């Protein structure tokens, strides 16, 4: 059984869903508490996040810095737009590689699913080209990885 789904929607969206055994309040907290974020939002094996700034209030900043410990690293900056504890977060983010990528607006919902949580993360990119570039380089960035179901094509 796979708990994760990733698919494209329209020309500019990428939608990720994932179920968790924990209730929405806990999953929400794990997305907004820097000490918790540093434990899981790491991408490929071997990478760490030495800097994690996450001021979970509307209009406040996000800054994540990753390193592989061998001289390679990159960072992400963003701002919170809306927070509704413990059900919904809207923020914008951009990767710095080192040039900033176009803004990705992300709406993350945490819905009660039995005793657990259904998380739905909906990313909105400025245009189809930006989404294509994000998908093509997702592995390197480790985070914004996505999956397109080539339904009926194979």
């Amino acid at each position, binding site marked *: 059984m796979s708990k994760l789904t990733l698919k494209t929607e329209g020309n500019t969206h990428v939608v990720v869903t994932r179920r968790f055994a924990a209730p929405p309040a*806990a999953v929400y907290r794990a997305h907004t508490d820097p000490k918790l974020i540093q434990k*899981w939002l790491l991408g490929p094996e071997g990478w760490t996040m030495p800097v994690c700034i996450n001021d979970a209030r509307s209009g406040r900043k996000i800054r994540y810095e990753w390193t592989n410990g061998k001289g390679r690293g990159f960072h992400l900056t963003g701002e919170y737009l809306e927070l509704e504890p413990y059900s919904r977060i809207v923020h914008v983010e951009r990767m710095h590689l080192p040039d900033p990528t176009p803004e990705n607006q992300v709406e993350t919902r945490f819905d009660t699913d039995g005793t657990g949580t259904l998380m739905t993360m909906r990313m909105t990119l400025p245009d189809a080209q930006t989404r294509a570039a994000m998908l093509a380089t997702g592995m390197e960035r480790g985070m914004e990885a996505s999956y397109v179901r080539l339904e009926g094509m194979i």
Partner: protein
Amino acid sequence: MSGTLNLDTAFSALADPTRRAILTRLAKGEATVMELAKPFEMTQPAISQHLKVLEDAGLVARRVDGTKRPRRLAKAGIAAMDQWLAMLRKALEKNYDRLDEVLAGMEQPKIKRGEKR
């Protein structure tokens, strides 16, 4: 380069709904430009332009059959892209597997009515 998968161009190629529809049609079997143009109500030059993008991306191949140039899916390109996407998915799943562990280790603020530890 035809026949070689270029991820950037492949994902760009897939960003267009007409090109996705062409791939879906070709998944059912090869087709000529004329056959492809018909259901899409597009001119043959317009379809040819879309096919060129798909060929450059390594997702579509052509063969020579007399005066015809039927197009088909480039299986290797599609498979390579699928493999790539599976890797991306795995990398993302790794984050969430770690999150499962973090959540399991978190103290629950309070036990709700009817819940068992």
